[in-house]
């Protein structure tokens, strides 16, 4: 008998079906992946089984008994817990308090029994091998540790079903490995794990079975062993949309960006030619984003000297970098990419208002023409140009960020995690865009945690470790395992791939 089961689960919003008759079953001790492109209905499904949404029709069964969760707390108590991408922790409280928040044990006097809370938390953390200090304030923990607090919180409800929504999105590869170890242990004690991820390699790595949703319909449930990557992608996307072979590249032109980066003892040089895509690989903490932001004048850094087309860039500020044509696309669009309450068009033209103004007054028609054309070119789908940008899907939000970057007429485009939180289709479009831009003579630097992404788009890949470039590979001379080994400091690989590769 399945532990968690749904039958005919359906949900409509304002008459529009987003989930139609989904049958699903997860066994105890199984890692069951749930995949689908954005808009496939994954979030709706998760929200229903975890008690945040009521289904329009259908049944949920837990260990054979029909259940109905009116709130997430009811689901928790029944043993169904979800760990969202965005954590729900109280940052200034400590680990133990967070684990038991809302259910603090009390002494006979009715006061919070901190000693017991701490003891229970320590025992729970210990049982599952989480190395966390129950007294540590959550705000001081790394993202991976905060995630463990969330998982510990779920386990404190005696979770039978643990739902992990994009759990590795913010983790470095070693942290991911540790999370996988945690998942293996939970699986061994009979927890059913519902694993949702855009990263299909992880699905193949840890899942037993996979259920594919497309347009709110369950397309397939398969054993992972019976599938390959290409097969899974075609199930997700429907019609044949599997990755094509990377298109041939034009030969890069003259040196566009040349920089020397000093951090501590190490000195690294970075060269990007016109028409070239250079990838910057490495694990979290390797200093990729720091370097990218320094190049774009965004980090206060006297560690860097750089020239654009042979001209030195003296002033280090975002404005100065922009005037030299260096445009940065942030890794965190919600923080410093988008103007969140504003509409799509306003977000797009925000950096190019001079071009749509006359005598200091904005010309609405010119703004719509300039911004609208760019959005159309990027195939951004929005209900209207005025639609609030935060109402769009991740992929369309990222296109809005790119649209503004391109309106700044870049000569050097620096993209940090250009496809983070973006569905498969939009990801391919963004990759195509990068290649197209390079083809038109732009120098492109791409920072990515996904080695596969860099392998797909980059002409050269630089690997960073401890804030220095430690290896360089030309297109076609490297594969994913090699990149992984270089980034994790395997001496054999590093010796063979010194970064002084001829530019």
């Amino acid at each position, binding site marked *: 008998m399945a532990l968690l089961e749904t039958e005919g689960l359906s949900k409509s919003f304002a008459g529009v079906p987003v989930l139609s008759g989904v049958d699903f079953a997860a066994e105890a001790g199984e890692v069951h992946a749930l995949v689908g492109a954005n808009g496939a209905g994954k979030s709706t499904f998760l929200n229903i089984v975890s008690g945040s949404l009521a289904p329009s029709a259908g049944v949920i069964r837990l260990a054979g008994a029909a259940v109905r969760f009116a709130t997430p707390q009811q689901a928790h108590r029944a043993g169904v817990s979800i760990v969202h991408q965005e954590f*729900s922790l109280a940052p200034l*409280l400590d680990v133990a308090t967070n684990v038991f928040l809302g259910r603090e044990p009390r002494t006979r006097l009715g006061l919070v029994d901190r000693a017991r809370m701490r003891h229970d938390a320590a025992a729970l953390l210990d049982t599952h091998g989480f190395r966390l200090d129950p007294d540590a304030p959550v705000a001081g923990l790394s993202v991976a540790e905060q995630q463990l607090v969330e998982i510990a919180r779920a386990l404190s409800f005696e979770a039978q079903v643990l739902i992990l929504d994009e759990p590795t999105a913010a983790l470095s590869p070693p942290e991911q490995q540790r999370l996988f170890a945690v998942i293996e242990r939970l699986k061994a004690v009979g927890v059913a794990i519902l694993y949702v991820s855009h990263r299909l390699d992880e699905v193949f790595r840890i899942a037993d079975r996979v259920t594919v949703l497309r347009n709110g319909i369950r397309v397939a449930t398969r054993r992972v062993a019976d599938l390959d990557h290409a097969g899974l992608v075609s199930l997700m996307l429907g019609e044949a949309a599997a990755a094509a072979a990377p298109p041939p590249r034009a030969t890069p032109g003259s040196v566009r960006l040349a920089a020397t980066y000093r951090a501590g003892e190490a000195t690294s040089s970075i060269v990007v030619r016109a028409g070239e895509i250079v990838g910057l690989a490495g694990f979290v903490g390797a200093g990729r984003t720091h370097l990218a932001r320094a190049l774009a004048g965004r980090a206060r850094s006297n560690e860097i000297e750089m020239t654009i087309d042979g001209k030195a860039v003296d002033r280090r500020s975002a404005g100065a970098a922009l005037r030299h044509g260096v445009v940065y696309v942030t890794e965190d669009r919600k923080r410093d990419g988008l103007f969140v309450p504003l509409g799509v068009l306003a977000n797009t033209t925000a950096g190019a208002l001079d071009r749509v103004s006359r005598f200091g007054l904005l010309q609405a028609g010119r703004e719509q023409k300039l911004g609208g054309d760019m959005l159309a070119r990027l195939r951004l789908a929005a209900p209207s140009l005025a639609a609030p940008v935060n109402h769009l899907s991740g992929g369309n939000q990222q296109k809005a960020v790119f649209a503004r970057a391109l309106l700044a007429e870049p000569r050097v485009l620096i993209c940090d995690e250009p496809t983070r939180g973006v569905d498969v289709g939009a990801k391919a479009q963004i990759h195509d865009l990068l290649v197209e831009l390079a083809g038109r003579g732009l120098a492109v630097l791409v920072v990515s945690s996904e080695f596969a992404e860099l392998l797909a788009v980059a002409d050269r890949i630089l690997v960073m470790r401890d804030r220095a470039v430690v290896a360089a590979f030309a297109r076609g001379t490297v594969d994913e395992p090699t990149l992984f080994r270089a980034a994790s400091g395997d001496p054999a690989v590093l010796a063979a791939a010194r970064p002084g590769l001829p530019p």
Partner: protein
Amino acid sequence: MMAASVTRRAVAGPPILWVAALLLALAAALLPGFFSPDNLANVARQSAVLALLAIGQTFVVVAGLMDLSVGMLATLVLVLAADLMDGRAEATLAAVGLAVALGAGIGALTGVLNNALRINSLILTLGMLTILQGVTFIYTDQSLGAPSPAITWLANGELFGLPPSFLLVLVATGLAHVALHHTRFGVHLAAVGGAVQSARQAGIAVDHVVLVAFVISGLSAGLAGLLLLGRLGTGYPNAGVGLELDAIVAVVLGGTALAGGRGSVVASVAAAVVLGMVSNMLNLLEVSSFLQMVIKGGVVIVVILIGQIRPEVAR
């Protein structure tokens, strides 16, 4: 153990303690009269009203909110209680009942409005402040009534050689400390102030917690009103003007984050006492009250500045 870990930064961290030490050293050097028992008792009496307000305000600020209505709420209580007692001893109990009921009642009203209307608490309580001020002036535009002897004694007298108002503040501080750090309510309040969505996810009844915080704030304002009446000796309808800002200043000087999520009642009370010390010392130095305002403002800015610099140095 755990309580210490949650509150350690709030209690040991605030630069208000350094300021206090510095002031005491200055006082020792310049003002021999400062350490006389009479003067220390004076400092305690002068600080008591603000200390009570700061205790209540701490709860609201930990929830990430603000209560600007407390100065005028205290004034309304003061005027009504003065008129009610008019110096009569037998009316003391009624006046205390009035202070508690009106304080908690208005606090509850503010809390309910905050939850129902979802207006920024700063604006909502500013509105409440104005309404309460209007009501006070409709009731009377000049001083009226007088405290009963018991209230006068509470504010100005002596008990075991100590000012009774000081003992009241100590008891209130102890109760508030337990409520903030050792009850579910206190833990939930900090969770609400730190991350309201997370608190909701954890099943915390956010509205209920916020309502209780406003009730505590109103209650402390009611008691502060009585105490202030005892100090002034008459129901003066401008008595509490600006007290709400002093209370917020004391809370912030005490190291409670204005954004909410953590705080310490003990530190807020300590800050209120330090503010009282500053006034007292400046009085002893015969500094004009207008210059005193300038100096106090400067002290506030400097202390907050130190508080902002410190965490980054530590990092």
